[in-house]
């Protein structure tokens, strides 16, 4: 199993949720986060000089998926969240060592 952590534009959150639902991924954790990317924030010009805003608003989606649909899930998230402009975000895939469903106290991936 893999943990997919996607940091995306907040306005793309609904599109990503819909795309994941279409491939059968429903469980996820959504967090509102702040951060910056490789541009180190955005520079704005004001009357008295430049200001740099380096804490930009993003949405983080974390979901654990089976190995066989990881690629489909990545494609779904990328195509739903992409605009092509700086600030589209990141997607990280990490291996999952153990995964426990608390209700059933079982490590089986199936319900």
């Amino acid at each position, binding site marked *: 199993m893999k943990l997919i952590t996607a940091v995306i*534009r907040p*306005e793309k959150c609904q599109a990503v949720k819909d795309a994941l639902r279409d491939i059968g991924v429903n469980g996820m954790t959504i967090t509102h986060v702040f951060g910056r990317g490789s541009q180190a924030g955005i520079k*704005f010009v004001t009357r008295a000089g430049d200001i740099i805003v380096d804490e930009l608003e993003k949405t983080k989606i974390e979901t654990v998926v089976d190995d066989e649909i990881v690629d489909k899930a990545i494609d779904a998230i990328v195509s739903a969240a992409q605009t092509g402009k700086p600030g589209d975000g990141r997607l990280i895939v990490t291996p999952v060592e153990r995964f426990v469903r608390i209700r059933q106290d079982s490590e089986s991936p199936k319900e």
Partner: protein
Amino acid sequence: METAKRLGLLATVVVAVAIVATTLGMQTASADSIGLNEDSGSISWIMVSSVLVFAMVPGVAFFYGGMLRKQSMSSVMTQTLVASGVMTISWFVVGYSLAFGGDGLIIGSLDNLFMSGVMEDAPSGISELEFALFQGMFAIMTAAIVLGACAERVRYTAVVWFLAIWSILVYAPMAHWVWGGGLFDQFLTVLDFAGGTVVHICAGITGIALVLFTGPRSDRVRQSRAHNIPIAFLGAMMLWVGWLGFNGGSGLAADGTAVRAAVVSMAAAGCGMMSWAFVQYMVVGRVGVLGMIAGSVAGLVGITPAAGYVGVPESMFIGAVAGMLCFYAVRYTKGREKLDDALDVFAVHGVGGIWGAIATGIFAVPALSGGTAGLIYGSFDLFIGQIVAVLGTLVFCFTMSYAIIWCLSKVMRVRVTEEEELVGQDIIEHGENAYM
């Protein structure tokens, strides 16, 4: 460029000093008290009402700010402060004189610049200076409402300049036409007790002009939900409390009319809120703070022009219809792509104000309104007058406001860019997060 700016600044200062110097010369030393005024009751009540109306201004900031993203809270408060500052200056310097300084058809006069010749004492009733203070609060209130429509996109500097020009070219003529003996007063039979046309329709349609000119916000900002319901609730309740002075003081005396205005305002607000809640419950399936506070404001807007002229049953009907109408108006405008009225200023204040003005034309009781009868008493004059006044207000305020913002856009950047909008005006323009 820099030199030109400095020269411009210098010129402004010189002109300002010249105006102050001339006017100080014109000031007449106020005469000693003209006897003892017996009507201290009215003086007190209108002073209290003025304060109540001013308390609505921070109420508006809380009401609107709570319903926006948390990145816009400081911006809303700052813009409300601009409304208080710019409108106060403009009103005392020239606005009052233009609105109430004479009987001209289009505009008053420049006789009362800097409140010169406006006395704080009066032999009976309230003095003219007290009237000017009370009216000044209405000017601030109107400007504060306007800024809710175009929230989260108009730049701070543009707001300052817009309000400064708008207060003279739009608000002062409107107040003059309806209350100051101008156009509407002279040619039409109109009744506007506490500012249905001057405050609410004017604010609503000015908001629409700004919204159409500056365009909608980006999707993310638009879809974000109210960030602080308790703050929105607090603001709405401050509006409701203040409104009792807004309507109650508009009879300009502490008499039976003031009592009637306060009573019918309460009745209409309650009915507006509950009718909105009822319709929302039937259509959407659930009701909450945001719907109910919008309903109460809709009811209060509806009763504003009629407050002194109707009885309790009529006021309840006016309030209930206002709640329903505004609910559907909000649903309609929310579905328009281009019409991004951020806080439903037109749907609530505009539509509610139009209904209130027409309802006044239908229900005005001749015994209460000094003989002007509404439609149900068999007289068409008032009904038609009200409709013409509403149409006139809509056309005039929209055209002028659109023209002002269009001209401003030629000399400055009036709108924040999409990137700036997403980060939020709190940081970009003010450098102050509302919350840590």
